[in-house]
């Protein structure tokens, strides 16, 4: 039997957005460009460019959380805010156990299904 569900599997990704009118980049997507007020059509992204956000980041701050919400069946999780080399920032999970502010990490994206509903894509910085 051929398992068609195995075909066309896409790696999970989280996108950054670039306004092609003025070149300003964003994460997450805005509706109106902060710099030139160009409007983004969320269906077609016409006049906007998307690009996957991954790669080297710098850790700006972090925490280890012990009281997790419903769905997370682990003792604790680490979270952080990072800055990508292109200046964009993001919040996400840390895949390391002893972080320090200013340390260099790498961002990757994985799928999370802890919460009810459809799986979502999340950042892991490690």
């Amino acid at each position: 039997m051929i398992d068609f569900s195995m075909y066309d599997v896409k790696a999970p990704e989280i996108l950054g957005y670039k306004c092609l009118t003025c070149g300003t980049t964003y994460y997450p997507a805005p509706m109106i460009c902060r710099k030139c007020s160009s409007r983004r059509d969320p269906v077609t992204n016409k006049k906007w460019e998307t690009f996957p956000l991954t790669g080297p980041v710098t850790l700006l701050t972090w925490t280890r959380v012990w009281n997790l919400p419903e769905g997370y069946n682990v003792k604790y999780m680490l979270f952080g805010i990072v800055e990508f080399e292109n200046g964009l920032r993001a919040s996400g999970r840390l895949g390391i156990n002893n972080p320090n502010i200013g340390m260099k990490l790498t961002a990757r994206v994985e799928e999370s299904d802890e919460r009810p509903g459809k799986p979502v894509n999340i950042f892991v910085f490690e």
Partner: protein
Amino acid sequence: MTARVGIVGIGHTRFGNSSAYDLVDVMAYAATDALVDAGILDQRREIDQVFVANMASGLFCHQTSIASAMVSKMDMEPTPAELIENGPASGASAVKVAYMAIASGMVDVAMVVGGEIMRKVSGWEGTDVVASMLHTEAEYNMGLTLPSFGGMFARLYMEKYGCTERDLALVAVKDHDNGLLNKYAHVQGACTIEAIADNETAGVVNNYIAEPLRIYSTCPVTDGAAALILVNMDSPKAAMFKKKAVRIAGFGSATDTHCVHNRKDPLMLNAVRIAGEKAYKMAGVTPKDISFAELHDAFVILELAISEEVGLFERGKSFLAVRNGETSIKGRIPINTSGGLKSKGHPVGATGVSQVVELVRQLRGEAEEGRQVENPKYGMSVNFGGFGNNVVAIICAKD
């Protein structure tokens, strides 16, 4: 604006665990207290408009349309009633909207009631409900919660200014000392700096929630309601109230980026600063004129940061003032005389109203012995929505 708007009635339930009760009952109880305080229980239909503040009754209690339900419960039909939802800043937003309704001339007397029952769901569910105010894709989906942002903010603040975990504990001790004397406070228990910071066992008593924040750095999960009656002080209806009005001298509100990571400096609470500046300007006062303040200490680090953003202390210096006792009841600028969110509790939709109730109690001289500020003239509240992305500041005055 030319209208003078004053507060002539206050009501408040004992904050705590009210999960056995109906949200509408709890709100109506606080509202009835306010009618009694104002001396208009049998003239309640003189109220022209009711504004109800609530964040998430649909999620916490599976109840909706609670404004009209509460009016009906109080036999106040056909008084108009609407719900104001602005996250944890819903309460102060409702006060602001009521002020604007009166100042517009459309309304002479307005009632504001804030309420939330959060403990009908488990702690895990409650944390999830509150986290739903975060950016869905870029924050909530990652597993982030409000305490997560409190922890990350605290780490940055402590690293930059040299504030320690013991300094955070000192804020909690001060807030609990005040809450111990407040008949409405959720946690009416004293804590000592030895028990939560200095002793060898302190880490067990005061365990981590979101490092470096500990359980005594964080507000409890609380149910309750608070209510106010506002009047146009220059309208004929003002004469029907038995107590002298406490005037709302000014208010200001502002928003900030939904995603915390998109703030140029994650330590800057721009919406707090702007809301405070607007409130000072409208009231015609400066931070030096403020006698005491109720600041949104959902996490004690926020009491410190907000007090700096609204100009009560220099940036990075507020924790030194706490060490010196400057923010205690007898200090230079008492902060969170009610016990704050830390001790009094934080039923999210009620908090902004509850803060203003405390301003009125202090300005009337009605606070309990031991926590009454001496001869206050101006009181300020700051109600903080999201992680600072929607903030309302209010200044009340004793004329």
